[in-house]
């Protein structure tokens, strides 16, 4: 197991480096210039040239790449062109916010996806299953930005029970303990719902299909023949087998959640990496784009690594193939 993980981590490091290198050159190939916003009648071209020199933008792209790469390898993400602050500092402020949203929506995603899928499979073709199918397809077909706006309209404007934006109330500085936690949780409900539950519809369909396949297996009949209650048959014998193919989907869905977070963060004015990324791309803030890209790449690879590990833990046949037993 340890060797398997080590090998995967080393492979992943190489992969991350390749992703970042490609991003670097693509950014420089793309039209646009980080200095474009200084083109102003009051700023002389000489000043802009001087700034260009200070940021190292006047050197050949290859040289810029090596300077950036050398810093990056030492853990120095560079300085944001736009904010004139170390990128590391900016990330340290925004990553926890994005993680809070992602973890909450991932939890909702897994919980709703697996539970609804299993319940549907167990009561196949029942009224519950049919209703579930219709609702799932409906939610699955709705673009998340539209769903977000509709929910804001309903819960924030009409009913006024949930905040429409930001991570906490303006007066939250005076709160602590449980009131602060509740305030933050209230702000989390709508964005996490849009991000997590809406995608859960897809996961539930996979889980339902996988579960229905497993419920046809001979060993399920064996479990029933032992006299096990239906609850144990479903939750112990069927679930673990049905979860094996679904774990792959879970690993692949992490990038989708992160990608969705960009839009959802923008709509809900969530001070996370998504909003930062969008701004950085508009202003060609290369160091920020690269650093955010790095974080996302690591998360995606981590998601896949977790999925592969989960796969091996759930299915003993995989580990014995790895160790050649």
């Amino acid at each position, binding site marked *: 197991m340890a060797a398997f993980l080590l090998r995967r981590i080393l492979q992943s490091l190489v992969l991350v480096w390749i992703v970042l290198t490609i991003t670097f050159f693509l950014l420089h190939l793309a039209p646009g210039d980080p200095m474009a916003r200084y083109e102003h009648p009051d700023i002389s071209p000489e000043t802009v040239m001087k700034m260009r020199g200070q940021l190292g933008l006047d050197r050949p792209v290859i040289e810029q790449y090596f300077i950036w790469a050398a810093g990056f390898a030492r853990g120095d993400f560079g300085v944001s062109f736009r904010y004139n602050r170390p990128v590391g500092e900016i990330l340290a402020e925004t990553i926890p916010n994005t993680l809070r949203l992602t973890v909450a929506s991932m939890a909702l995603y897994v919980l709703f996806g697996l539970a609804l899928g299993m319940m549907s499979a167990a009561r196949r073709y029942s009224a519950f299953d049919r209703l579930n199918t219709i609702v799932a397809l409906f939610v699955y077909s709705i673009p998340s930005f539209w769903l977000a706006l509709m929910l804001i309209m309903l819960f924030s404007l009409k009913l006024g029970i949930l905040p429409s934006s930001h991570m906490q109330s303006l007066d939250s500085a005076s709160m602590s303990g449980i009131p602060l936690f509740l305030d933050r949780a209230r702000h989390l409900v709508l964005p996490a719902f849009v991000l997590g539950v809406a995608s859960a519809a897809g996961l539930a369909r996979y889980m339902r299909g996988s579960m229905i396949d497993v419920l046809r*297996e*001979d*060993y399920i*009949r*064996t*479990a*029933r*023949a*032992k*006299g*096990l*209650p239906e609850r144990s048959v479903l939750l112990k*014998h069927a679930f*673990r*087998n049905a979860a*094996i193919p679904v774990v792959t989907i879970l690993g692949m869905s992490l990038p989708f959640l992160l990608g969705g977070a960009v839009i959802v963060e923008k709509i809900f004015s969530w001070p996370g990496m998504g909003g930062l990324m969008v701004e950085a791309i508009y202003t060609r803030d290369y160091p920020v784009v690269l650093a955010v890209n790095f974080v996302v790449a690591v998360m995606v690879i981590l998601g896949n690594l977790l999925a592969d590990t989960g796969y091996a833990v*759930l*299915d*003993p*046949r995989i580990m*014995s193939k790895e160790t050649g*037993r």
Partner: protein
Amino acid sequence: MEKLLEIRGLTTEFVTSEGAAKAVDGVGFDIGAGETVGLVGESGCGKSVTALSIMRLVQYPPGRITAGSVMMDGRDLMKLPEKQMRRVRGNDISIVFQEPLTSLNPVFTCGEQIRETIALHQKMGRRESRLKAVEMLRLVRIPDPEKRYDNYPHQMSGGMRQRVMIAMALSCQPRLLIADEPSTALDVSVQAQIIELLLDLKERMGMSVLLITHDLAVVAQMADRVVVMYAGAVVEEAPIDSLFSDPMHPYTEGLMASIPKLGERLERLPVIPGNVPDPLRLPSGCRFSDRCTKRIPKCLIEEPPLFSPAAGRLSRCWLREGIGR
């Protein structure tokens, strides 16, 4: 002999697009305490469905038990609430299936799958049930049972897996073991070992056995009494010796004739002409009439009841009408 199980008029239907097909059509026979009854017939004659019906393991949809009773200890198993029926399964009646390769759950160790049954019915703790499970593995002559306990099914051969299934089935000392083609899926040399093992365990534990097979040689070796099924119905019942010396139904005669005999040279082995009828399109009159070599006009008009031409014998054939009733 004291009766353990009395099956009467058992009827199981499968819903198809063309209507309800009676896979088991009014089947009735007894199983005495400590007796081994062979249930014989071609593939698709309803043997396995009969076994699953006794344990109420026929999955609905598409299957459904529509009539009949199975009396055990003065209770009708067909009318028992599901919760009480679960206490019968694996405890009073257990079953060994045909496919050892797919009947064990691939993600749990073999030992755990036996232990679970013991813990469920015998109200034992984890350690105690584990010891009992190891003892069961030893009983079915799996070498090195403490080590094999932690093996997953894919780490065992077909024969070993069938031993695990037998250990699981016998772990709560059932009074009836249903063995559904227990050796059919195995290599010939392993088949003999499994039959040998079942004979030995039956001797030691004294339970009744319902042995389902299409292999008359296995029946001759193990059974005290034989029930022959054709197209969902019982066509003949007889003690083992008299069945072989004096079959009383043309179908049974056909089955006997198609066994190759040692020291006999034949150009072609005699076969029963035609195929088993589709349960949705049974011939009028006797269900064997379209393939029978001894057919008389009455056979095409009226279905014969079970006649009793001699003590302890039953035959569903008009040719036996009125003889020694």
